[in-house]
């Protein structure tokens, strides 16, 4: 069997980028939450805020560390597997991605250390400032990354001469047509992720009766936040979809599972897309609703996948189902946020066992929503890498063979499985140990500034730590 380097490279990129994406999407939201907690601690001097902030800063440190490690791989993928793309787009993407790296370093160099290790060593105002700058820094980082990605979706401000993109307008290229929507959509996704994780972990602690006052506060805060941003995300997602309809109609057609351009297109709830015969095998839908959502008229015309030749079509089933998973999770999020509001009556939200169990389960859903959302936008762009200008096949490294791509694909899977299972395992340990007993040890001044060293949790489970009893810290 002939190994296809193109499909293997696509799987490899999807794997490493998906793995990487789950860390920053969480840290971006969490950094803002920590900044808010620090602000509250600064203003009210209530020790509970400090306690919450100190705990979530530990979690932040571990997740940030994993994001940095997985990010290193990303900066080399363009060259190893997509060298024609690297060569062609370097005039724009090179500086943009470099600015992202520079931002991340600048952030780490100047403020992360102060946030993680400086609580008792710098004035409270300086510590708060560091927390705000870290939160801001994560946004600036994602600004550059999303600008680069959006340019690949809706290229602007550049012209293609002899196979190389030249920048004609930096502002048009950076603020390309889909960028504002993608950036806002992703920012809210980060808040949703941070919000649901903090709420879910707090709910879990409440179920166990641990640190009730602090976790009640955390849950309450998150529920207020989610009540506003979960519906806001739905509205914003709609705007993003309309923007996509304007610039990438085929992607929207795949999202809707609509093959023929036509009016009165139903909103499909279920379908099995059959790309070969350009139709759906089986479908259940609500009549005309897709037309209404996309055009705001019941008989509005919706583009179909078959409008473009088969070789210019994305794999419809992946886009169609990813989109449904994302939207389904989004609706579930709104339902939980609203339920939280209802349960506030009589202060039941932190004592209702089924609700807390539900929130606990919800803490992992944002990651699936984010990944499926990216599947929609990335797979939906296929076969283009730079939409309308460069295909994935053209972008591939010419010297790459199927065997080479398979070798590194397996390699990355093995490395990631080993490294990140250790990382996730350790993160679970940090969560298990929890908010209690956060005594810092006295060697703090000597302590080198490594992200993980902000978390004083041993790697292995202590002897006396079984059956729900939190461990004592340290273990030196």
């Amino acid at each position, binding site marked *: 069997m002939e190994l296809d380097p193109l499909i293997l490279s696509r799987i490899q990129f999807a794997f490493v980028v998906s793995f990487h994406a789950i860390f920053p999407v969480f840290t971006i939201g969490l950094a803002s939450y920590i900044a808010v907690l620090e602000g509250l601690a600064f203003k009210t001097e209530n020790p509970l805020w400090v306690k919450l902030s100190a705990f979530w800063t530990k979690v932040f440190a571990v997740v940030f560390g994993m994001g940095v490690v997985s990010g290193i791989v990303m900066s080399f993928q363009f060259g190893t597997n997509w060298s024609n793309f690297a060569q062609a787009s370097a005039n*724009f993407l090179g500086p943009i*991605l470099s600015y992202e*790296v520079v931002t991340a370093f600048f952030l*780490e160099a100047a403020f992360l250390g102060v946030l993680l290790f400086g609580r008792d060593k710098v004035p409270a105002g300086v510590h708060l400032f560091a927390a705000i700058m870290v939160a801001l820094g994560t946004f600036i980082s994602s600004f550059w990354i999303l600008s680069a990605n959006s340019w690949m979706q809706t290229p602007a401000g550049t012209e293609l001469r002899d196979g190389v993109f030249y920048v004609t307008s930096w502002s048009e290229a950076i603020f390309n047509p889909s960028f504002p929507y993608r950036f806002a959509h992703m920012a809210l996704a980060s808040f949703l992720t941070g919000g649901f994780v903090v709420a879910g972990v707090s709910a879990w602690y409440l179920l166990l009766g641990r640190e009730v006052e602090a976790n009640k506060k955390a849950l309450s805060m998150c529920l207020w936040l989610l009540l506003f941003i979960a519906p806001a995300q739905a509205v914003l997602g709609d705007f993003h979809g309309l923007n996509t309809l304007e610039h990438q109609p085929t992607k929207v057609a795949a999202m809707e599972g609509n093959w023929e351009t036509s009016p009165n297109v139903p909103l499909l709830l279920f379908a099995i897309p059959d790309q070969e015969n350009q139709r759906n095998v089986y479908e259940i839908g609500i009549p005309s609703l897709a037309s209404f959502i996309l055009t705001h008229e019941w008989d509005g015309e919706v583009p179909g996948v078959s409008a473009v030749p088969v070789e210019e079509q994305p794999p419809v089933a992946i886009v169609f189902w990813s989109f449904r998973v994302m939207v389904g999770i989004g609706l579930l999020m709104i339902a939980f946020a609203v339920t939280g509001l209802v349960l506030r009556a009589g202060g039941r939200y932190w004592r209702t066992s089924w609700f807390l169990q539900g929130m606990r389960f919800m803490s992992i859903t944002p990651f699936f929503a984010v990944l499926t959302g990216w599947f929609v936008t990335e797979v939906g762009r296929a076969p283009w890498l730079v939409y309308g200008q460069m295909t994935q096949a053209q972008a591939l490294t*010419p*010297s790459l063979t199927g065997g080479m791509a398979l070798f590194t694909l397996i390699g990355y899977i093995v490395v990631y499985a080993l490294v990140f299972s250790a990382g996730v395992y*350790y993160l679970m340990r940090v969560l298990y140990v929890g908010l209690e007993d956060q005594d810092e040890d006295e060697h703090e001044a*000597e302590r080198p*500034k490594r992200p*993980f060293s902000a978390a004083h949790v041993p790697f292995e489970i202590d002897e006396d730590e079984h059956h729900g009893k939190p461990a004592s810290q340290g273990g030196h």
Partner: protein
Amino acid sequence: MELFDLPLIWAFIIGFGIIMYVLMDGFDLGVGILFPFAPNEEARDTMMNSVAPVWDGNETWLVLGGAGLLAAFPMVYSIFLPALYIGVFLLLAGLIFRGVAFEFRFKARTSRYLWNWAFAGGSTVASFAQGAVVGAYIQGFETANGVYVGGALDWLTPFTVLTGLGMLAGYSLLGSTWLIMKTEGYLQQWAYKITLPLLLAVLVVFGIIGVWTPFVDELVRERWFSNLSIIWVLPVLTLLCAIQIYRSVRDRKDGMPFVATMGLFITTYLGLVVSRWPYVVPPEYTLWDAASAYESQLFLLLGLLFVIPIVLVYTAWTYWVFRGKVRAGEGYH
């Protein structure tokens, strides 16, 4: 309209970044290579403590170099990475393992030996891969129309294996002299003991590479044996550095062995640069051929001129904060 020779400025920036990386990550990779041979577990604790505060700052130069290369010399980026495909993977896997070992070894108790191996193995593989990259650069790349057209393992030749081993020896020397400077007692004595054999190994391997290199490529031979005799000062300086390492170890000096080893690396590096100047993708493309568009180089340069000084100041500050000897059982847990 083009006011400055931006590709030249960028060549200096990237060149500076590379030597910064080699010197700084070199010693902490070297400590990793020496890790399994340390006298005992307490010594390993101290060794890791001596580099823990600075190693990730050191690696930032690698990431900055990678991104800067894409921005300023995309042709280098898009030829080197495909040509070194398998090597790049090994390099990254090695760096990931040792990076994670830094995080977890101090948290681990019963599983500590696993992280020891991850740290030592990752450091060794990454160092060898870096040495092989240097060898592959000297060898040159098979290209057509600015695109790599060679095979997956063209980079792996007897010559690149030798440069890989040379890098292992060189980084080990940086590591052992770093330990001389940063530790005391029996660990320092051990470091003194292994430094001279390592120096000998470095001189032998570097010597073979030095003699071999002119025969790898016509242009390199011409460069060294034509009328540009001033460059012979570089190998002479390298030898003087080696003598200085020998004397300072013999006299049990603290800081000089490390400083002299850095000197040895810098002069060897400059020797490599003059061998191939101005070709960045030998044998065909110069740094001007490989450069990105003028406006792209300018756009990033403006930001870097602001950030690089800050990174340098921060780096210096970190080393200042963690100056002096690292003692056993102190610091990082």
